[in-house]
């Protein structure tokens, strides 16, 4: 696993060099490679598919513009995801100004706009009922995640959803590892309470 990671990192570094020299096609490769993860981070943080798509676009454009500032010693993916995290935060603030979030954000219209969302099909073909149930559960879970405060949400998304290491998260959020952990643990307690409320017995 680590080897694979290292390889992708090196590939990234190569393409970054090309981009710095104005190679737009090299950047396209990077876009294709990272867009899914970026979208998922944005989506899970913001809770809105449409906004998440916009944020991802902005993030890539921002990365391209600031390519010259990127130090090649650093990890490109971390740098890129930091951008999308920051933009997601901003977007979230804008949305919050528009409509305040309540604890019971499950009634939030945001969660009904899932017509556009395509979900990765599970490897085994579940029945329709199961699929619907699953969808229902996922909605609720996302709802609970949205009800978290921004800081807690960030660590939950990055750690439990995206599976980044504590080190990587610390890098992206610019906070010490200890803080990452404490935030995460606190967040989980809150989530547990929320899920119990929403789903009954979990």
């Amino acid at each position: 696993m680590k080897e694979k990671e290292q390889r992708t990192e090196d590939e990234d570094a190569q393409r970054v060099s090309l981009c710095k020299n104005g190679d737009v096609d090299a950047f396209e490769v990077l876009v294709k490679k990272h867009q899914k993860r970026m979208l998922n981070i944005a989506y899970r943080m913001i809770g809105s598919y449409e906004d998440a798509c916009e944020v991802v676009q902005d993030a890539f454009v921002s990365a391209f513009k600031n390519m010259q500032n990127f130090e090649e010693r650093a990890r490109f993916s971390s740098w890129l995801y930091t951008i999308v995290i920051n933009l997601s935060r901003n977007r979230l603030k804008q949305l919050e100004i528009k409509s305040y979030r309540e604890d019971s954000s499950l009634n939030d219209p945001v969660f009904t706009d899932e017509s556009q969302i395509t979900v990765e099909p599970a490897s085994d073909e579940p029945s329709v009922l199961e699929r619907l149930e699953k969808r229902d559960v996922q909605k609720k879970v996302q709802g609970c995640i949205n009800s978290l405060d921004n800081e807690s949400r960030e660590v939950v998304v990055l750690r439990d959803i995206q599976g980044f290491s504590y080190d990587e998260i610390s890098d992206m959020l610019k906070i010490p590892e200890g803080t990452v952990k404490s935030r995460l643990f606190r967040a989980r307690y809150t989530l547990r309470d929320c899920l119990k409320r929403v789903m009954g017995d979990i």
Partner: protein
Amino acid sequence: MECADTQKKLSAYIEGVISPEERMLVNEHLTSCQECSAFLADMRKTVEYVQKLEDIEPPPWLTQKVMENIKSEAKPKKGILQKLFYPLHIKLPIEAAAVFLIAVAVLYIFKTIQPEVKLTQIPLEEIKTQIPSKEKIPGFVETKPVPAQPAEKQLLAKKTEVTEKVAESPKAPLPVAKEDEARPSAGAVVKDESKTEVLSRAPRAKALAERKEEIFSLTINVKDIKTAIKEIEKVLIQLNGQIIKSESFENKEVITAKLDSKKLKELIDKLKLIGEVKEKDLEGLEGDIETRIEILKTSIQLQ
């Protein structure tokens, strides 16, 4: 370990980021505590739910859209619209131009009102210099009855005019102008109208006269100055002369008039009828001459 403590540690416990000693304590507690065991199960489930959230797929158009945005960023911004709306290219130049225009306008306005500013100051200055000079010259008495107020104002207004003209014609000497102003009495001896006329013409006449630098002086001895003045003035008018001014001194009167040099002979002849005239040389005089007639009272002397 108490329940509260245990539950706090459970997250770390799950993650495996707990010290061996603490792990042992938690384990110990869990074996005996139903509540905390259930809590642990909850915590594990929570993490599971979150981890099981499915990834969403990016829309198919996303890559293309991103690249379009990138390419428009990469292009040099030569589009007219972009050029127009790019703040630094359009906003700052406009602002700079506006500031410049304002500065120009202000300077222009300032320059336009400058002459007026200067001119309105001159009379004040000259009057100020007047007053002390009047006091200094002994015997410089102003002969006149107090002229009517409006006349005075009129004269003062004319004075300003005169000063303006004086200021404009650089050759007109200041002393001349000063003398003019020292005589607000102008209206006394001669009618106001003609005087004001004279006053306005005077500087120019004086300018002319001064340019030629010719003053013809005459002295006439008379028995009665007052009568003589009237007579002399009549004569001057007859001869189409212009009386410029009339000055009063302790023992004499001086009438300054502009007269055609051709009439000088006649003048002298007529003056002889009024009093005793001391002859002066008439040769070499041309054009309008400023004639200065001194009227002296004959001292009663037995010769």
